[in-house]
């Protein structure tokens, strides 16, 4: 398997001993692990960001807390599933973390299986997300091949409008709409208005 596709787990914990213990457990379970002693260290020096994986994050750290790190990652649009480790979790903290998109919330001390299951799920999610992103990127690239006029026609077709109305809206003849429609169907390699609508929806969701 391509090394760049092998998952890499990132462990951020200020407690050196626990950090070493996590590395030992996760490596014994066959994972590859990168460890950081603070949220800042992770932000500044995340190793191999292209590889899939997840972030195992101690929620309580002296300088930047786990939640703050999660918020910053969200702001930067970094999609990396987060598993929080916490000594004592109060409800507000859990809610906050989940809103920010946390994958899991594990109370210390934990059973190894619980952590490993959570990690598996998170990595799967990352992989799925990456697949999704890849697919979206392909769509976006195709959509970006359309001319501005074709894109206008495509949006209106996706809304389910007939050619005549589209022509009126864009102040062009129905015939011209017919031609654009044929071209963009060819460019996007689709065969129906329903297909087009679906594709437009997926591509726009990502904000690409």
């Amino acid at each position, binding site marked *: 398997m391509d090394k760049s596709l092998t998952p890499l787990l990132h462990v951020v914990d200020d407690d050196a001993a626990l950090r070493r*213990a996590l590395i030992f*457990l996760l490596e014994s379970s066959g994972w590859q692990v990168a460890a950081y002693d603070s949220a800042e260290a992770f932000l500044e020096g995340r190793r191999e960001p292209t590889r899939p994986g997840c972030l195992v994050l101690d929620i309580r750290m002296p300088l930047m807390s786990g939640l703050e790190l999660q918020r910053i990652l969200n702001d930067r649009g970094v999609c990396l599933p987060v598993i929080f480790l916490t000594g004592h979790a109060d409800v507000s903290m859990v809610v906050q973390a989940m809103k920010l998109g946390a994958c899991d919330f594990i109370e210390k001390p934990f059973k190894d299986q619980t952590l490993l299951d959570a990690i598996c799920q998170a990595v799967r999610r990352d992989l799925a997300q990456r697949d999704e992103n890849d697919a979206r990127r392909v769509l976006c690239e195709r959509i970006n091949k359309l001319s501005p006029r074709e894109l206008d026609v495509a949006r209106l077709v996706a809304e389910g409008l007939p050619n005549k109305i589209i022509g009126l809206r864009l102040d062009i003849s129905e015939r011209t709409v017919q031609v654009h429609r044929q071209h963009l169907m060819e460019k996007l390699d689709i065969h129906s208005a329903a297909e087009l609508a679906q594709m437009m929806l997926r591509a726009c969701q990502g904000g690409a």
Partner: protein
Amino acid sequence: MHSRRLLTAFPVLLSLLLLWAAGALAAEAGPTRIGVLAYRGPEEAVASWGELPARLARAVPGHRFEMRLLAGPELREAVRRGELEFVLTNSSQYVSLAAEFGVKRIATVMLPEALSSEQAIGSTVLTLANREDVTQLADLRGKRIAAVASDAFGGYLAAAREFLGAGVDLEAGDARLVFVGFPMLQAVEALRAGEADAAIVRTCLLEQLAAKGMLRPADFKVVSQRRPFGFPCATSTPLYPDWPLAVTRDVDRQLEKAVAMALLSLPPSPSGLSWDVPADYQSVNELYRDLMIGPYADLRTTTFRGVLKVYRPYLLAALLLLVGGLVHVVRVETLVKRRTAELRRAQARARELQREAEHMARLSILGEMSGTLAHELNQPLTTIATYAQGLERYCASGQTDMAVIAEANREIVAQTARADQVIRRVRAFARKRTAAREARAIADTVREAIGLLTTLLPDLPKVLLDDRLPPGAMVEADHLQLQQVLLNLMRNAADAMRELPADARAISVVLERVDGDTVVAVTDRGPPVSPETLARLFEPFFSTKPDGLGLGLAICKSIIEAHGGRLRVEPRDPPPGLAFRFNLPDSRSDG
């Protein structure tokens, strides 16, 4: 004292003496004078001793002996003035003269009935045969007792000692004494006449009178009779030595020796008197000491009863005063004791409350920090669990790198110690305890407080400890309490700087010596505090923190004051921040 004397015509004897004396005067420079106790008058004395000078003169050639018949006080006076070479007197006066003027016995008289020179004479205490209520000397307490004279040996003193031994102090008036004087028969007469319940006479008088038909022995009985083996008479007392002949201090040794030899070689007199080697008069001495008379007379005046007798009215007055004083003192003492006990109880209660409050405060610190505390315990626990489970997986996967396994194991052990330490610190801090002061370096206490606080507050700002104390400086204090104070001050400092950027936070702890006191200053760099707040900081239940109990600083203050110091706060110089400073006086130099 000795009866059965042959009554010789006094004038005849006197002329004899004078004749002899005149001859002696012609032959020698001066006569050798013998003072003789004439306790029953000169006639009796001459009757007893009249032949002695002549017999001595015959035995000691070249010396003329002269007998001076003197009553007790005169005899003493004559010895005092040095007018006598020899003294012949009764045992009791001899003991006095020996003690007072150093006269020394050279021979002791022996009566025919005497067992030895040391056991010759005692007292017989008589009562009527029909007195069944009197069998022992003690029975005579408070009764009337006829005796011869207060200085008569057999006729009073020997018996008096036995009375004393039986608990009846005749000298102190435990019985009503009647001194009848000589002849001794009068004592018996007084008894017979019912004027006395008992009579004290010298030993063998009873037997002699009976032999002469002057009384019927069956009419009398002897109280507390004892029968020394071989002694022919009834006695109520031990036997004592009889009269000694003593030499005064300045007599020529040759003469002394010659007289002693002469006396011992004299044949018994017609009345049966003979001379023996000088007896030990220790028993007589002891009698005097027991009775506290004669040379021991001042013993009596210094004993309580003696003093009581002499100074009764004054003593009574003094006693009343004393009792009054004592009552007052006891009353005052009792009051003082009661008040002191009340005060002590109140203090103990206050101390107990103080301890409770301190304990509460410690618990509240722990309570406020329980989250961090759980975190601190969770960390090692999680680490241990993670390693242990990791090991299981490592081994299950067939890997056998012993170095890896050993390393994981080491980590587990280390984490166990870490958890243990957390628990230990917290427990030591939280448990109830009594104050215990010890001499210790305060820097160690500060370091421990920092260590504990690091456990409780993981985001504790850096603490800079500046120890300016001389090396080895110790502070005698309750260091756990001091730790509590330091913990409070440092936690407050940390709280005050919570809003500051991390690199701007710092707590400084300075230890120094000022005027013999150890001074500890805890300084933060927190935002400015209003003077009003500053003034109220030490008030109980005043707190600037939303969840603060407001007891921390109040308790710190009372702890420092209990150590004789003061806790103050002032703005940090230079601002911003506050400096909490307390001093601990050197308790050892204060004593």
